[in-house]
């Protein structure tokens, strides 16, 4: 297993390098000048030169690239933001935390909702509950999360005032005790998590429903019934475990989608995350931040995929044998 993980990591390094190289090229070859947004008519005209030098944009492209790559690989230094001079790596990592919080909570939410409803639909297959759920989930599956977010924000936050409309914590968060802080987080995260989680839960729902129906019709479930196992054991242990397996393989594909979704949700709910950092960096041509954020996004996706594969092989014994056999 360890050697498998190492092999996978080694395989993914070129992917990351290709990815960030492409990103580097795209942003450096694009028209426009990141320094220009800092200028106004009262500044001396040499200021443009000063900024270009400060940002190291006067070198030839390949020199800039090599310099940058060296810095990243040997010092883990992504440079400093053009906008506020902060180290890009620090900024991006601190932005990753809220995104991870959002993504993981949404994933858990989506899994709980998707699995729970998927089981119900499979148990009442083709009956009324199944038909209602399937139609509902088709709706969420087709709903762009930004619209869902705006609707939730408009109704529950602005109109009804039940939930805060922005941020991860209240202003007085630090004044609260731990239970208060937890409640504060929950209060702030509910709408964003629903926004990101519901469309995702629709995907999970489809897989679980399919998997559960397949499992429930299988011979081993019939055999287990014949052995007198309780219904809850049959559903939650014997069938669910089997229908979770395809879900885990989907998880790997879900991670990029989750990051893309978080981008929109963070913009709508003003959350301080990687997505919002990326959006504002793109709009302000903050090259170091764009590069650091996309690198981090690629790495997150690859680590996530790896994790999904490891979990997959742990849950599905048949796969593990295969990978052991390969190595």
């Amino acid at each position, binding site marked *: 297993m360890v050697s498998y993980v190492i092999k996978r990591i080694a395989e993914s390094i070129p992917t990351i390098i290709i990815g960030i190289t492409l990103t580097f090229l795209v942003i450096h070859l*694009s*028209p*426009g*000048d*990141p*320094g*220009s*947004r*800092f*200028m*106004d*008519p*009262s500044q*001396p*005209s040499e*200021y*443009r030169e*000063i*900024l270009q030098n*400060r940002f190291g944009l006067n070198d030839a492209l390949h020199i800039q690239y090599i310099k940058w790559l060296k810095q990243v690989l040997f010092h883990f230094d992504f440079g*400093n933001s053009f906008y*506020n*001079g*902060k*180290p890009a790596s620090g*900024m991006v990592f*601190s932005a990753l935390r809220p995104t991870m919080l959002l993504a993981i909570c949404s994933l858990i939410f989506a899994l709980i909702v998707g699995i729970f409803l998927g089981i119900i639909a499979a148990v009442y297959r083709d009956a009324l509950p199944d*038909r*209602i759920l399937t*139609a*509902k989930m*088709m*709706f969420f599956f087709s709903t762009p999360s930004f619209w869902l977010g705006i*609707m939730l*924000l*408009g*109704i529950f*936050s*602005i*109109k*009804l*005032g039940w939930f*805060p*409309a*922005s*941020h991860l914590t209240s*202003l*007085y968060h630090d*004044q609260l005790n731990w239970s208060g802080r937890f409640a504060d987080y929950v209060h702030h995260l509910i709408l964003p998590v629903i926004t990101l989680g519901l469309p995702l839960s629709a995907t999970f729902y489809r897989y679980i429903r399919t998997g559960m129906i397949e499992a429930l019709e299988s011979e081993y479930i019939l055999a287990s019934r014949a052995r007198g196992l309780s219904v809850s054991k049959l559903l939650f242990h014997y069938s669910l475990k089997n229908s979770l397996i395809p879900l885990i393989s989907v998880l790997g594909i879900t991670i990029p989608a989750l990051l893309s979704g978080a981008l929109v949700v963070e*913009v*709508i*709910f*003003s959350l*301080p995350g990687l997505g*919002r*950092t990326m959006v*504002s960096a793109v*709009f*302000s*041509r903050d090259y170091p931040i764009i590069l650091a954020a996309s690198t981090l996004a690629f790495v997150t996706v690859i680590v996530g995929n790896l994790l999904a594969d490891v979990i997959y092989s742990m849950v599905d014994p048949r796969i593990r044998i295969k990978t052991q056999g390969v190595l």
Partner: protein
Amino acid sequence: MKSLFYFCLICAILLIYSCDGGKKVSRRSTSEFNPIKIVNGGTLVVGIRAEPESLNPLLALSQTSRNIISLVFRRLADINEDLRTFTPVLAKNWTFSPDSLSITFNLKTDVLWHDGMPFSAADIVFTYQMQTDPAIGWDGISFKETIRSVDALDDSTVVFLFHRKSPAMLMDAVEGYILPEHILASVSSEDMHKAEFNRRPVGTGPFKFQGWKDQQTITLVRNNSYYETGKPHLDRIIFKVVPDNINLLSQLKSGEVDLVESLYPRDFQALSAKWEQGQSNIRPVSYLGRRYDFIGWNLIDPDHYRQKLKQEDNSLPIEDYILPNRFFGSRKVRSALTMALDREALTNAVNYGMAIPMHGPVPLILNAYNEAANVHWPYDPQQALRILSEEGWSDTDKDGILDKDGIPFEFELITESGNTRWEQAATIIQDQLAKIGVHVSPRLVEPALLYGKLLPLKEFDAVLIGWVVGLTMDYAPLFHSSSFFTPFHFTGYYSSKYDSLDDASKKSFNPAVIQKYYDEIAGLLSHDLPYTWLYYRQECSAIHVRFKNVTIDKRGMFINPEDWWVPVKERSRIDKLFEG
């Protein structure tokens, strides 16, 4: 089944949206002025749309950064509302030398930096050195061009020596916040943009920097050792980042945010209506702002200009770069286009009445402003059409678009993407010009591309943007031939008459003569129309009514924050939470 479900869902959404939320009963205090003693305490939450880029006065550019800096740092003196006289701040007083070439400042001696170190004359000298260091690139550097040297006579006396006499000497001397030498002396000017100080500023102002949560909040707290004893009264000022406008507005209404600057006029009008009906605790405040928007015409042919630039021959006279633009090279065409614009309707539509149509170059906020000096182009599409046909533009092929020599009058109006007001204005202009047969395609462009490439290289037809103005008037970067190749001189306007007027205005020392030059410049530019000025904006802000003693005028929202206070009875939930 499915369709029934959707139907119910849509009905539910519509229902929730269309019913009005519970009417809030006014809790607004009836007595605006309370004669009892001022008490300290209270928290002000300021909603901001973007995180400040830096809290270092040398690097700050955005309004948000400048606001926060104005609370943490102090100048030598602050300008008064008349924009002529000054009130001493860090200086105790000042005297002009008999030859009017130097100013001697006597400094306050009881001022401490937030870290407890004493403030002294050395800080003033150091600040001047930093401000004029080209490697740092302070944006106010032009203020200091008239200064020859700054010297400390002793710990509490500083002398500013000038090259020549000018009416703006005092303004030039006191411009800029004073920085702590004991902290920044160790930072090289190349590394200034990365300094820790930019994120944890130390100043002499009424509020101390306390903490910065990325993309969320910046907290300032009361400076207990502020030199004006007993001030400030507020415990804490929190700047809360809320990028989304609707979010910000709803937080203002719900009391999560107390103060918001630069509200959208539409939101401002709604708030004002509620306020006037006595249904709201949010006091709307509007004052003359610092921004105006305009259309910039490209007077020269972009392709010709580009070709000439490629020759890289520095000895070419400017005239060689100028080939009149096929549309806007003619002053008459520009005046026709200006007359085809219903500026009144445009201004009211995008600003909801919170702006004033503008006809000439001088910003309304400046003392130099004189409306009578401008040439007025009334809204008159018929006249516009007549002028255009005199210029050879008429709809010969009957396709609804004017043409001349087979070229249809079609151009792109570029504007910055993400700025709703400009997007709306461009769309309205497109509609208005279409009525006289001029086809405009609005195009939204990224700021970096707009200011970094299209404008500096004059690669555009027409642009709709706006400027933020300072308290002095200087049009040289925009229209003077000496800045012809610099990024902000994008119209390609070239007029020797303007050049001589501008030069003359700078040499003069007599306010009345200077005003005469300004009026002439205004008359000339509003006649030549390198820009078509659209409107001058009024700033729309709002602050919760519980804050007393708040002074707001054209200098901005944060003129006297050290005097603001909150009566105990009116403290909000957040005030109380912070008090424990």
